[in-house]
């Protein structure tokens, strides 16, 4: 039986939704048991994974692995996979997932397809779809090795509940933590919702004309309950911090709703948000490229539209 190992991540007191999506994706390509691996994770959080169909989790408890370590985690995951006779390992394409997956693939003698947006096993072997050229094209790829590793783009796959009895195995792996890279400190964004975690993002571009007008974007984001994003132009101009930049050289996001205000829609920006479930564009130029990728658009002046939209959303709640 060659089952699948899903690498689980948690944030605060919850399992990451991306991990739940990975469990459902694993179940969609295999009828074999799905196993999870976690690091220093509480039973309460692991129980959430059980709600989505994991039958067993190996919870790694080595004291040296209480904080994230790229090589340490990669070697631990490989050891758990080998000991549990899995042939496929699935990661979420989060910051840690994307860093670990290729390392694990080498140690696991596996080929690796990254940032996948679909998995299909109807032909007998798994075929993965992934975006390339900043999302201008998709390729269907296959992995030639028996062992395979995939990472899945967050918020593209659906997480579906499939409650099952979960057994948790606490494990000390025999990994060496000499010669590794370890986290020594973490800074959390106080208050501000990060674009990588938000279900809704409102982004502003040069159409806002100056940093002093960006409060409109902040108020609209707040009215939607979402995060603030920015185009490269306004980050380069110093109006907004680099952490808010969405695009090819910023962050790639795929929220449920992306609202682009005063953003023309340069290819490099689209690369960062084109897999958003719903895209709204607000721009006074009806020929702006952003309208070609929008589900809904409002053609008009952001200074006129945004205050009205904010008011409508506030009364809508």
């Amino acid at each position: 039986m060659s089952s699948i190992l899903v690498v689980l991540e948690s944030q605060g007191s919850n399992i990451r939704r991306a991990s739940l999506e990975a469990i459902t994706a694993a179940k969609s390509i295999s009828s074999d048991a799905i196993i999870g691996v976690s690091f220093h994770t509480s039973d309460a959080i692991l129980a959430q994974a059980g709600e989505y169909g994991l039958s067993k989790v190996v919870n790694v408890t080595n004291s040296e692995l209480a904080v994230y370590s790229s090589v340490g985690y990669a070697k631990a995951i490989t050891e758990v996979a080998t000991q549990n006779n899995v042939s496929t390992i699935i990661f979420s394409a989060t910051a840690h997932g994307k860093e670990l997956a290729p390392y694990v693939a080498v140690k696991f003698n596996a080929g690796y397809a990254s940032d996948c947006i679909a998995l299909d096993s109807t032909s007998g072997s798994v075929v993965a779809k992934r975006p390339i050229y900043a999302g201008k094209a998709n390729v269907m790829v296959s992995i030639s090795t028996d062992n395979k590793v995939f990472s899945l783009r967050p918020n593209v796959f659906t997480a579906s509940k499939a409650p099952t009895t979960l057994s948790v195995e606490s494990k000390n792996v025999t990994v060496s933590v000499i010669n590794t890279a370890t986290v020594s400190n973490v800074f959390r964004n106080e208050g501000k919702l990060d674009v990588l975690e938000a279900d809704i993002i409102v982004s502003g571009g040069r159409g806002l004309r100056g940093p002093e007008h960006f409060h409109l974007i902040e108020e609209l984001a707040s009215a939607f309950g979402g995060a603030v994003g920015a185009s490269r132009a306004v980050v380069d101009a110093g109006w907004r911090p680099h952490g808010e930049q969405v695009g090819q050289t910023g962050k790639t996001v795929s929220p449920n709703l992306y609202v682009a205000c005063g953003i023309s829609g340069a290819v490099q920006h689209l690369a960062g948000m084109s897999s958003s479930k719903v895209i709204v564009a607000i721009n006074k130029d009806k020929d702006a490229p952003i309208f070609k990728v929008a589900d809904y658009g409002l053609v008009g002046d952001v200074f006129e539209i945004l205050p009205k939209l904010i008011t409508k959303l506030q009364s809508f709640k």
Partner: protein
Amino acid sequence: MNILVCISQVPDTTTKIAVSEDGLSINPQGVKFILNPYDEYTIEEGLQLREKHGGTVTAITVGGASSQDILRTALAMGVDEAIHVTSESKDSFSVSNDIVSAVETLSIDLVLFGRQSIDYDSFQTASTVAALLDQPIITMVSSLAVDGTSVKTERDIEGGKEVMETSLPCVLSVQKGINNPRYPKLPDIMKAKKRTLIERTSSNVEPRVSTISMELPSSKRAGIILGDTEADISELVRLLHVESKVI
């Protein structure tokens, strides 16, 4: 400190992409090829580390004949040597093996990458090279400090920043904004044209991932474009709530 800077040549994303006749790759007609945008930061970081710590900076690329252009750009920016590995392979695993073969012929303390190349967006070569070398890896570095063999980095993660530490020798990939890349000066560009590149052949390791087909994504966007009246704005809110159910 001896640094190897790994760079790649990619199609410019502003180019229109068409699928070629074989259905597996892009049609190169009319496509402009450039240095991967992230790699400007990679080269600059190598040069700044050399300025602080001494040693050498070597640039390497794995690709066809035209990829020599980006090596000349790196030489013009100031790298000491440039290695061209001739290969047609595009799988990250085989490219990584070619880089590792080169590393094993040199005495390298630090291997630097840009965070991803904008053609395949694989985001895997840096970690793959690190695993093959059995060295530590830290990706997406936005701030880097080296002190002796101690390496301290900062990078963005979901919801914040992470400080990660390791020691040389190691592999790092850098994020845009870590530095301000210098522009090569014309005299250096001219000198770089005359430099001899170190040529290597590929070890031709079997790729592990292969393309079965390529498609241009169909735009299934609703494309409902309205004006700016109160009624239009109300309609947008209704569409988001009732039709798309995102609010």
